Every structure is written in C-alpha cells, then in structure tokens.
C-alpha cells in the first residue's frame, strides 16, 4: 500500500488550512486513514483537529478513528534535516550556529522544503492511505514545487561561490578570502571576521549536499504522484497566484486537479427584483452585486485558463468542529474525494 498525497496550495488568507482540514475529515469519515499536516491553524480549528499541544508529531484524533493531525514546525524540521544529511559532528556544529536559524528562515524556499521533506517522510512510512499537506503561505502557490531544486542549488554552493567570486575554496583558503578586491570592500564594511564565519558556515552546509540532492529527487517524484488543489477567492491577489499555475512552464508546476473558489455567495442573489424597498432589500442588492462580481470573476478565470472551477459556499461561522468541516465539503460543488482520486469513482 502506498499513501496518496493531496497538496493544498494558494495565496494567503484564502482558507487553505480550513479546506485542508475539511478534506481530511471527509476522507477519514469515508474510511480512509488520513493524516493532515497544517501550518499555523486558528486556535478553534486546531482544537477541532485535536492539536492542543501544537505538536509536530502526528497524533490520532480522539473522536475520529481514521484521522491524524500534525503541525509543521519548520525550525525543528530543519534541525532534523541537518542531522539526516550532514555528518554527525558537522550537524551538531550547524544547528548550534546562529546563522543556521537565520538562513533556514531567509532562504525563500526553506519553509517549503521543510514541509516537502516532512511530506516525503510521512508518505514513506506508509502508515496512512492519504496525507493532506497545507502548503506554507510564504510559498505563494507555485514556489512550493520548485523548493527542492532551489534548496539543492543553495546548499550545493551557489551562495558560497557568490561569496568567493566563483571558486569553492578549501577550508584553508578562507583565510585569504578578504584579499580579493571585491571582498576587501565587503570586509571593510562588515569586518573580515564575519565574512569568514559565513563562508565557514556555508562550507558546513555543503556537507548536506549529497543527501539533500538525493532527497530532492525523491520529493519531486512524490510531487508528480500527488494531486494538487489550488484554493482562491474572487479577490485579485489570490487570483493572480492561482493563474500562475497556468502561466508558468508545465515541467516546473503541475496541472492543478481542482481550482477551488472559496467563500462563494449564492447565484440566486444576483440582480434581485425588489418588490419593495427598505433595509432588507438594500442589503440583498449589495450582496447581490458582490455575488455577481464573484460569478463574473470565476467565469473569466475558467474561460481564460480553460478549466473547471469548484466552489465552496461562504459560511458566516468559522468551523469549530469536525462536523462543521465535513459540511463544507458536503456543500461544495465540484470538489469531492472521487474527483481527487482519494476514493474510487
């Protein structure tokens, strides 16, 4: 048995975490052993998932037999990654280095890479039929998929070569680093000591290269086997993120298996014919205008990128229980487990 993977991506603030949880609950209730890995859930959602202790370890849900939940702790993941891929003595030195924390937060791909490596680890234990990954907000949508290649490149020495002006120095050569003209200026600005410490740190990072490069290839294979759900709302910023899945080269980004418009208003509210006036009619008219805008935006997106769109209705109350979460998927149009290949058609 192998695990299926669902990757839930999209721009910030569109409800990725909620929909990840909702899909996971629905799968669990259909008898699929499911793990959902969330990032920074709202407190009430975390409570609903049984994530009281904010643990990064998958924990089974008390009242839902097929559901497990975990939270990504990128900092802890990166320490584990160092120990997995670097020689033991170097790994100890790396995680104690203050640059390690900064670098693993700074590299734009690092949170995504941590999340992707956790995904691969969970999938390979084969303890679950389905692993649902709520992808990091920092990644927008598509950057998640280039994170392994990007990390491989960074750890492999791109930064070190930039720092040294092309060559990958041996450890002894570091002490002549600031003799180079470009670096003499950087040295004067920052102190040559800092440059040497950074170069030494980057050389330690390089010891992870072979392990990390191998792992990156495996992660990319998992991406190819995964189903991708892109979540958006009818707002311009998340729509731009969603469109990038169609604009970018197909070998870098998978074709989404579903484009989900979240917080959708009923079409029945369009162009109301008010029998009377008054505050209630006025209220319907302005919400009708908003519902109309949403429909236009969705139609335009579907026509432009020749794709179907799924919709999840706007519910005024944020979900606080597993039943609330399951209801979201039950009420959705075009978004179901059959279509995502989680349960047979």
């Amino acid at each position, binding site marked *: 048995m192998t695990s299926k993977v669902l990757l839930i991506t999209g721009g*910030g603030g569109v409800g990725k975490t909620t929909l990840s949880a909702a899909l996971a609950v629905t799968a669990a209730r259909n008898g699929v052993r499911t793990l959902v890995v969330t990032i920074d859930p709202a407190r009430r959602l975390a409570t609903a998932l049984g994530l009281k202790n904010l643990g990064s370890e998958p924990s089974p849900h008390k009242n839902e037999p097929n559901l497990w939940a975990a939270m990504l702790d990128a900092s802890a993941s990166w320490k584990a990654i160092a120990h997995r891929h670097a020689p033991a003595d170097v790994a100890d030195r790396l995680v104690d280095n203050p640059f390690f924390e900064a670098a693993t937060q*700074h590299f734009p791909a690092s949170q995504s890479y941590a999340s992707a490596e956790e995904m691969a680890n969970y999938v390979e234990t084969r303890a679950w039929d389905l692993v649902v990954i709520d992808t990091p907000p920092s990644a927008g949508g598509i950057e998640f998929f280039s994170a392994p290649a990007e990390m491989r490149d960074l750890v492999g020495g791109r930064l070190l070569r930039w720092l040294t002006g092309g060559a990958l120095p041996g450890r002894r050569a570091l002490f002549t680093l600031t003799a180079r003209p470009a670096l003499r*200026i950087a040295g004067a600005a920052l102190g040559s000591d800092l440059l040497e410490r950074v170069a030494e740190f980057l050389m330690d990072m390089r010891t992870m290269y072979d392990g990390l490069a191998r792992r990156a290839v495996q992660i990319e294979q998992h991406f190819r086997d995964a189903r991708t759900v892109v979540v958006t709302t009818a707002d*311009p910023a998340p729509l731009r993120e969603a469109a990038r899945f169609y604009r970018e080269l197909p070998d870098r980004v998978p074709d989404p298996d579903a484009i989900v418009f979240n917080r959708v208003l009923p079409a029945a509210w369009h162009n109301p014919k008010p029998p009377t006036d008054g505050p209630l009619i006025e*209220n319907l008219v302005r*919400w009708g205008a908003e519902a109309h*805008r949403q429909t236009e935006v969705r139609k335009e997106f579907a026509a432009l990128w020749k794709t179907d769109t799924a919709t999840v209705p706007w519910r005024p109350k944020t979900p606080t229980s597993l039943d609330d979460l399951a209801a979201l998927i039950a009420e959705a149009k075009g978004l179901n487990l059959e279509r995502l290949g989680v349960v047979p058609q």
Partner: protein
Amino acid sequence: MLEHRLIIVTGKGGVGRSAVTAALALRAVHLGKRVLTVAMTDQTGLALHLGRERLDYEAKEIRPGLHALAVHRPAALNEYLKVQLGVPKVTRMGPLARAFDALASTAPGIREVVTMGKVLWEVRKDAWDLVIADGPPLGQIGSHLRAPQTVAELVPVGKVREQADWMMELLADASVCGMLLVTLAEELPITETQEALTWLSEHHVISAPQVVANRILPALDATSRQINGAGPGSVQEAALMHTALRDEQQKWLTELPPDLQLPFLFGLLTPPEVAARLADVWGEE
C-alpha cells in the same frame, strides 16, 4: 498619524495592506503633502492599487504630489553599497553585490537592513513631506524593525555599523516614525495583531502604533422580527448571512478595539477604485 515623516503599514497577508497604503497616500496628497509610497516586499499589490502594472526602483510620479517606488533588492543592494557604504565607482558591482547577497541570505539582519535602509534613506532625503511604506507582512515586521540593531550586534565596527546607528535613531524617534497595523475582524488577524502590539511595546521600536480594521460590515437596520417576517428566500438569506458575519466581526472588534474602521466594499470595484473609496472614508473620519 499624518504628522509623521514615515508611516510603515503592516498586517497579516490578505488583509488589504496595499489597499490601505494606497488610500492613506491618496488622503495625504489630498491634504497637500508631497508623498512617496514605497512597496517594501510585495512588488505588485501597491502598484495595482495605484493603477500601475508595476513600480520601478526609481521613484515615478503617479499623480501630482504622489510618487511611488518598489524596493527591488538587487538595485537596493547596489545603492546601499554605492551611496551608503561609499564603494568607489571603479569597483565592478556584480561580484561585490553577489557576495553581499550571499551574506544577506545567511547573516541575520543584513537583508532587512538593505530594505529598511532604502526607506529610511528616502525619509532623510527631505524630498518628501511623508513617506508611506507598504511594509513587510506581520510575520516579518519584527525582523525588519530590529534589523539595524541585529546588524549592530553582529558587526562591531565598519561602515555598515555606522549606517545601522542612524537608522535605529530614526526608527526610535516618535515624531518621525509611525505605524499602521491593518487587520480584519477575524480570529487569526486579530490574534497576530495583538501579538505584534505586545512585541512592539516590549522592544520600544515604534511608539503608539495604530490599528485599522478593514472590510467592516455596516449594521443592518432591521430587527430580527423583520428578518423573520421576510419569509424564506434570498432576502432573508442575505439578511441572516449579513447579521451573522457582522456579529462575528463585532465580537472580534471587542477583543481589539481599532483606531479606525474601513468598510467592506461590495460589488465590481477595481483596485484603484478600492483605494479611492477607502481614501474618501478616511477623509470623513
């Protein structure tokens, strides 16, 4: 708020930070100020709300009294090296900028100090009455505000250290630097804004930050009896939806009473229309 020389606008992703920045800029221009708006980390949001496809690193006039630029990091790094560190003209910038970029990706504070440096440099220039920065998202605001400090701790001597010193002074000056925290009346944005306010008061970087709650629904002028009386159908559904959403918003607003509320805008509005409408609301306050 508009008495400051610099206002940094921040907020959780998706709360409308760029729209509020653009609206505040329009409001300040309306009051006769020479304004520069700066996109610090997000390159497209502010541009769209100003009616542009993109913004350049060079400040361009958007309309009389209003200029805008975006901090593209390679350009900012070049300017930082040339203007602020006084790197001689003869030096080939490519290798040096790349070496610096490697450092900026690794050593804490360097990347942020380059971005903050550009903004604070524009404040020092005296070409503008007010600089309004579409700042980093809430999660990165601490590392940006503390960047000069972090660099000063990391680099004991040298020109970078000297630059860090005047930046810290400017940021700490309450008459120069103000901050707007944009939020929605929802759990996560409110919680994160509260955490940011605590952080700001503990670190004494910015005094008296103000909170703006965006997309707030108006009260529905109808009793629940009237809503029930409407009978099943769209009128009633829309009324129930509205009151439920508004009740939820009001609950979160009591957790963190904002200094200003901006309305939810219904229907077909382009980003520049959104900015203009919000600027009008600002004027009415």
